[in-house]
């Protein structure tokens, strides 16, 4: 007798639900861990601090100091006045480029979420400020009243948000209070720019050659076999290669150019694989139509195949950029400096990159640097998230065609 919709069906449904739960479990776990990581890192970018300020120690209301692109100037004027600089000397001080440079290097204008019990105030921290106490976000939150009470006159109790626009725009410093991500950010940007300039033509050219001009030769098969091998080589090995060839053999030294060349080698297989996939997915009927109209092979490639493959190629390029920004090991081996005070001023200057900066801050003895490291991590994750988001969006557009 047929058991339709009876015990067997119920058992099957139970099995399906169990399987679904079993499959969903690791995903949920991963998401949970990721959430925990992000939470941990983000909370570490905020800390309660008690400062013994070397500047005026005065904070200013948000409205007092805010100006759409001139907040720094406005707050700095207030601070200089608070320090007792005579009114007629303030403007010349800010106007003189040399004096201004010194001011910028030694001071940091920050919008603190909380200063001495009042929310959102401007505070100018200096290189010579003394850090009396530093508490993590949650325990500090609980004990902020005690901190206020225990603070001696002249001391300032703040909730310091390490991740603010000033963070990305400031140079690194020996003092964690004024340290910024600018040299690393610019270094990473330069690397990305150079890598795109080099890897895209090489990668796309190789893919076009393999797919259109030499698809069945022994050379092509050899390249194809090794391409997937190359993509799987640990990045440290590329670092050693770069060190030997670019830094030592070519006598470039541990400079931006050497770093870019090394990362190009790392990234070219990624671009080639993505470009090949994109080129292969151009339907043969389009090629036939183009040939039928009397196109030469290069015209078919340039006017029909590549325009159609652009979305897929761009996806590969975006993924390559993401790898360039995130790679630490090869740059470390290469000799990217751990402490670089200012952004690189050319292709042949020493440099640092965001992951290197994170690594060096985390290795510092001064516990305050961990806040800076966390802030840098958040910046890095945000950039990567945006890049992967773009790659995802491009993939979807690519698929719908």
């Amino acid at each position, binding site marked *: 007798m047929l058991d339709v919709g009876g015990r067997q069906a119920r058992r099957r449904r139970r099995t399906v639900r169990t399987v679904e739960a079993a499959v969903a479990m690791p995903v949920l776990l991963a998401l949970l861990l990721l959430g925990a990581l992000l939470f941990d890192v983000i909370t570490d970018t905020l800390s309660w601090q008690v400062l013994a300020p070397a500047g005026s120690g005065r904070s200013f209301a948000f409205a007092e100091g805010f100006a759409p692109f001139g907040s720094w100037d406005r707050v700095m004027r207030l601070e200089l006045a608070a320090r007792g600089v005579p009114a007629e000397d303030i403007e010349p001080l800010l106007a003189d480029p040399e004096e201004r440079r010194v001011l910028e290097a030694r001071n940091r204008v920050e919008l603190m979420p909380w200063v001495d019990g009042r929310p959102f105030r401007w505070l100018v921290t200096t290189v010579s400020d003394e850090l009396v106490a530093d508490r993590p976000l949650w325990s500090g939150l609980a004990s902020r009243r005690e901190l206020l009470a225990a603070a001696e006159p002249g001391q300032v109790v703040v909730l310091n948000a390490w991740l603010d626009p000033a963070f990305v725009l400031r140079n690194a410093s020996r003092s964690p209070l004024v340290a910024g991500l600018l040299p690393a950010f610019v270094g990473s940007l330069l690397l990305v720019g150079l890598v795109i300039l080099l890897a895209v033509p090489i990668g796309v050219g190789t893919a076009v050659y393999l797919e259109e001009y030499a698809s*069945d030769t022994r050379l092509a098969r050899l390249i194809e076999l090794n391409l997937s091998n190359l993509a799987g080589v640990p990045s440290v090995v590329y670092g050693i290669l770069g060190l030997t060839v670019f830094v030592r053999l070519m006598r470039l030294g541990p400079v931006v150019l050497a770093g870019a060349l090394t990362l190009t080698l790392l990234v070219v297989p990624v671009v080639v694989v993505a470009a090949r996939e994109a080129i292969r997915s151009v339907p043969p009927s389009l090629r036939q*139509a*183009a*040939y*039928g*109209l*009397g*196109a030469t092979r290069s015209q078919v490639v340039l*006017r029909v195949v590549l325009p159609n493959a652009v979305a897929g190629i761009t996806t590969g390029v975006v993924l390559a950029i993401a790898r360039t920004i995130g790679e630490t090991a090869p740059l470390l081996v290469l000799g990217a400096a751990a402490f670089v005070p200012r952004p690189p001023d050319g292709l042949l200057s020493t440099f640092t990159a965001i992951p290197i900066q994170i690594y060096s801050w985390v290795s510092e003895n001064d516990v305050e640097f961990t806040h800076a490291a966390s802030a840098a991590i958040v910046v890095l994750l945000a950039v990567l998230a945006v890049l992967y988001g773009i790659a995802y969006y491009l993939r979807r557009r690519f698929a719908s065609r």
Partner: protein
Amino acid sequence: MTDADKIADETVRSSPVPAEEAAVVIEDLSLWYGDFRALYDVSLTVPRNQVTALIGASGCGKSTLLRSINRMNDLVEGVRVSGAVRYDGVELYGPDVDPVEVRRRIGMVFQKPNPFPKSIYENVAFGPKLTGFRGDMDALVERALRGAALWDEVSGKLRESGLGLSGGQQQRLCIARALASDPSVILMDEPTSALDPIATDRIERLITDLKRDYTVLIVTHNMQQAGRVSDRTAVMHLGRLIEEGPTDLIFTNPRQELTERYVSGRFG
């Protein structure tokens, strides 16, 4: 006796085309895909300004023959050709003939419509742009689209994607694209087999119009279509041309037994 043995060595021809009316002359054309011989000494004269249909069972070599005329078979690996194809007095397989030039003068329309994922305008302009056309492109595009009976439907949306058109419209776009290069011969490889009956009808009427200005050679597996559309018909079987002549003669009074069996539907 197998069918292969029954094929006479000679093609049976009725009302042969006089030489001065020829657009394309195929002489003893044989073709091999590697070791496989696809065409056996085919000779055919295609008359100017007429529609010639190429019919035959699946795998008989009609598409191969068609593609030999504009040297599209050159794109396949391991193809070998012997014999001659003469167009406008030029031997197309001669030593200093560039296949790219051949394809610019002989147009082709494929079985499944394959417009480029570009705008309608860019699709039609593609061919002329290959050769660096510098004249009035707008006028050329309009002329080609009118020639393909598509202008009235798309004149207001030339910048929209060609892929947004219906199947029949896409095929007419492909015809316009071929016309834009101003060929004198148009090759069509089963152009309506992927289309619905209404679209098929429109294209068949277009083909009958086209012969005013062009020579059309159409491969079709649909015998009724061959009967409706063509002036002459050539029948192929297993790589050989078995009979050719005026269409009504082929269909009403075929001289070869195989032809008779094929047109009466006894095999396909």
